C-alpha cells in the first residue's frame, strides 16, 4: 500500500516537473493578486499591515483553487483515472497520494513565497514566520477539501467556476483561523496557540475523511 502511494506521488511530481510552467503559474498568480491589492486600496503602511493576513489568505485560497481543476483532469482525459479505479489497492490511498503531490506542487510553494508578502506589506519577521506556519497548516486542508470538489465536477462544462461555488464556502474555517492567527501575532499580548490547535484539528479531520469522500465522489463521476 505504501508502495503504490510512493509510486503515484513520484509519478505526479515527475509529470508536473516536466511541465514546470504550471507550477509557476499558480505561484505567480498568488504574487500578482497579493501585489494588486495595495494598488487598489492605497499605500498607507498601517492599513497594509492590517489587511495583509486576509489578503494573503484569500490569494492563497484562490491560487490553490485555480490549480484544483488539474488535479484529476489530465488523468481523466487519457483514461489513467479509470485504471486507478480498477486497481486492487484502495482508491482512497491513490487519491491521497495525488492530493499530497498536489499540495507539494501548489501549497508548499505558497508557504515558501510568503516572505514576499511580508516585504510588500511591511510585516515584521515574527508575523511572517506565523504566516508561513499557518500557511503550512492550512494549505493541505485546501488541497484535501478542494479535491472533493474537483472529483465531483470532473469533466463538466465550466468546471472551474463551479468548483469555486462549491468549495469556497467550505474554506471559511481555514480563512478565519489562518488570517486570525496572523492578525493576532501582531498584537503584544497575542496568543496564537488556540488558532494553531483548531487548524491542526481541522487538518486531521480532513486527513481522515477527505481521501475517502474524494474516492467515492470519483466513483460517482466515472460510473
Amino acid at each position, binding site marked *: 500500500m505504501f508502495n503504490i502511494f510512493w509510486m503515484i506521488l513520484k509519478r505526479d511530481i515527475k509529470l508536473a516537473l516536466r511541465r514546470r510552467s504550471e507550477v509557476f503559474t499558480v505561484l505567480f498568480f498568488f504574487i500578482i493578486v497579493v501585489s494588486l491589492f495595495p494598488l487598489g486600496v492605497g499605500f498607507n503602511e498601517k492599513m497594509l499591515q492590517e489587511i495583509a493576513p486576509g489578503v494573503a489568505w484569500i490569494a492563497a485560497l484562490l491560487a490553490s483553487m485555480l490549480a484544483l481543476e488539474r488535479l484529476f483532469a489530465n488523468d481523466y482525459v487519457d483514461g489513467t483515472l479509470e485504471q486507478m479505479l480498477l486497481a486492487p489497492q484502495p482508491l482512497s490511498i491513490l487519491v491521497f497520494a495525488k492530493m499530497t503531490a498536489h499540495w507539494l506542487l501548489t501549497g508548499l510553494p505558497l508557504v515558501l513565497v510568503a516572505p514576499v508578502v511580508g516585504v510588500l506589506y511591511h510585516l515584521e519577521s515574527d508575523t511572517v514566520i506565523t504566516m508561513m506556519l499557518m500557511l503550512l497548516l492550512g494549505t493541505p486542508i485546501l488541497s484535501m*477539501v478542494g479535491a*472533493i*470538489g474537483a472529483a*465531483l*465536477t470532473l469533466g*463538466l*462544462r*465550466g468546471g472551474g467556476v*463551479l468548483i469555486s*461555488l*462549491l468549495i*469556497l*464556502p*467550505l474554506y*471559511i*474555517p481555514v480563512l*478565519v*483561523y489562518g488570517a*486570525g492567527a496572523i492578525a*493576532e501575532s501582531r498584537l503584544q499580548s497575542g*496568543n496564537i496557540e*488556540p*488558532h494553531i490547535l*483548531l487548524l491542526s484539528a*481541522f487538518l486531521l*479531520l480532513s486527513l481522515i*475523511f477527505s481521501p475517502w*469522500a474524494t474516492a*467515492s*465522489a470519483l466513483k*460517482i*463521476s466515472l*460510473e
Partner: protein
Amino acid sequence: MSFSWFKYAAPINFYPFAGKVIPLFWFLAITLTGFGLYWGFFQTPDVLSDQKQYYRIIFVHVAASWMSMWLYAMMVFWGLIGLVFNTRLSFMMAKATSTTGALMAFIALVSGAVWGKVSWGTWWDWDPRLTMSLILLFLYIGYIALHSAIDNSRRADKASAVLSLVGLAIVPVIYYSVNCPNPNECGALHQESSFKGVESNILLGMLVTALGFWMYSFATILMRVRNIILEREINTKWVSEL
C-alpha cells in the same frame, strides 16, 4: 397483513399518493400560517422591550430561518437514504427540497435585513448568525449549481448528495469558526437565545407560523417531486397513460 416499507419508494405509487396529500398540506399551510400571523399581528403586545411595532416581522423571520436549517438537514437525509438504498425517489425528494430550502434561506436573509434596517439602523451586520445564514444560502446555491451542471440525472443526484453530506460535515466547523473568530475570547461573542425570555403568546404565534411554513414546504416539495417524476419517467407506460 404484509406492509411494504418500499411501496411508496416507487414513483408509480408515489405520484398519485402525493397528488392526494398535497391539497391537505396546502389547507394546513394556509390555516396555520394565517392563524399564526393573525395571532402575531393582533393578539400580541404592541411593544416588545426595546422593539416597537416592527418586531412583528419576527413571525416570518424566525419561521423562515428555522425552515432553512431544517430543510438542509432534510435534503441531506434524503440524499443519504438515496446513496444507501439506491432509491431514485429519495434523490428526487432531495432535489425538490433544495429549491424550497434556498427560498427559505433567502426569505430569512431579506426579512432579517429589513428588520435590521429599522431596529439596528443597518441592512447588514457581520453578526455570527447573519453570516451563518448567508453561508447556508451559499451551500444551497452550490448544491443547485452542481445538480444543474450535470446532464446525467443519476450522476447529478449522487454527486450533489455527496456534496450536501460534505457540507453537513463541515457546517459545525464553519459554525464554530464564524461564532468564534478569535478563540482567545470566544465566550463574549455568543448571542444567547432561549424560549424562556419569550412571552407565551408571541411564542404561540411563532410556533404556529413555523408549523404553517413546514406544511407549505411539504406541499411545494411534493408538487416539485411530482414534476420531477413526470420529467424523468416520461418514457414509461404509466406516465403516457396519465
